[in-house]
């Protein structure tokens, strides 16, 4: 069986953020205003949003909090980010050391 879900007819339901954003960031009439916003930046942002968010609340509910860690989306610089950078640096260093070690018969 298939389901049809209709928004409740009584009173407008709060629309899903992704549905709104795909309309007002990807659609809607583009008029060149005086203040230029780099649409590419916005498109990049939309792609991320489309990938991940139904609504901020729902996203939090299912444990998605990418915008809190994504440096492109958050003005703050959370601690986890620094830890990630540190991790990557360490992994690179380990790879370096492993490569430097002579492996018998590998060549």
């Amino acid at each position, binding site marked *: *069986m*298939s*389901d*049809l*879900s*209709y*928004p409740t007819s009584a009173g*407008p339901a709060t*629309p*899903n*953020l*992704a*549905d*709104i*954003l*795909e*309309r*007002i*960031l*990807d*659609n*809607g*009439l*583009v*008029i060149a*205003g*005086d*203040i*230029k*916003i*780099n649409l590419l*930046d*916005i498109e990049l*942002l939309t792609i991320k*949003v*489309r*990938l*991940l*968010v*139904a609504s*901020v609340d*729902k996203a939090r*509910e*299912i444990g*998605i909090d990418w*915008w809190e860690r994504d440096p*492109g*989306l*958050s*003005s703050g610089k959370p601690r986890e980010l620094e830890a990630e950078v540190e991790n990557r640096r360490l992994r690179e260093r380990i790879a370096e050391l492993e490569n430097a070690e002579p492996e018998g018969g590998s060549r």
Partner: protein
Amino acid sequence: MNADACYTYAVARPFDVATIGPVRGVDDAAIRLFRYRDIVAVSSAMPPEAAEEGALRTRLETLESMEAMARAHHAVVEAVVERAVAIPFRLATIHHDERRVIGMLRHGHAEFDATLNRLAGRVEMGVKVYANISAPPPTSIVASVSDSPGRDYLRTRRVERNQRERGSRQAVDVAERVDAALAESAVERALHRPQAARLHIDRAENVLNAAYLVEARDLPAFHTLVRRLGSDAPGVRIEVTGPWPAYSFASLDSGGEP
């Protein structure tokens, strides 16, 4: 002297802005109309420092502040389309001052006029088709326990994946039928990219994400058609949103054509 910039939400046929009541614009600014002949720009003032490229960037880069702006934008556009035919603008259309907004109306009058005529009496409906992914419990797939639990596990996963892929192929076929029938009944159709499965609370796969421009008077028939298509379509869920302002059909028509 007015040094404020103007944020514009839509171009519409004239209406009484007093009826818009409690609806406010971005940053709670009051809605103002700028009129040129038989069209108006629906705008609100924005302090020049907020309208700078850097300030806007910062605002759009943070989901919470972008969401607030997006919802304010959408709320104004919704209020406008309840009162008059309107062409919804994309987020963040900003001019230095009202003189520039009126200039936009004057230069684009023929195109705005033709587009408003096309959108008159019509609404946008959103339709999403999801594949119903209801994988049966693993026990129903692998009854026998061999001496290799690892292999059993992999086999179970493979069977599940195959079922899912079959289900999603089937759903794509159904979605194509649904889309063809709805496009036929609608004035225009626009396809959006499917939304990621992660977006959906139950992670259902979105196989069709479309918008249809429908005559407002045909809405009941549109809903009936969707229901009928849904009942003929096993294994999918159809989600309808709208009526929306015609965001997905807001490209400008060339003015002056017959």
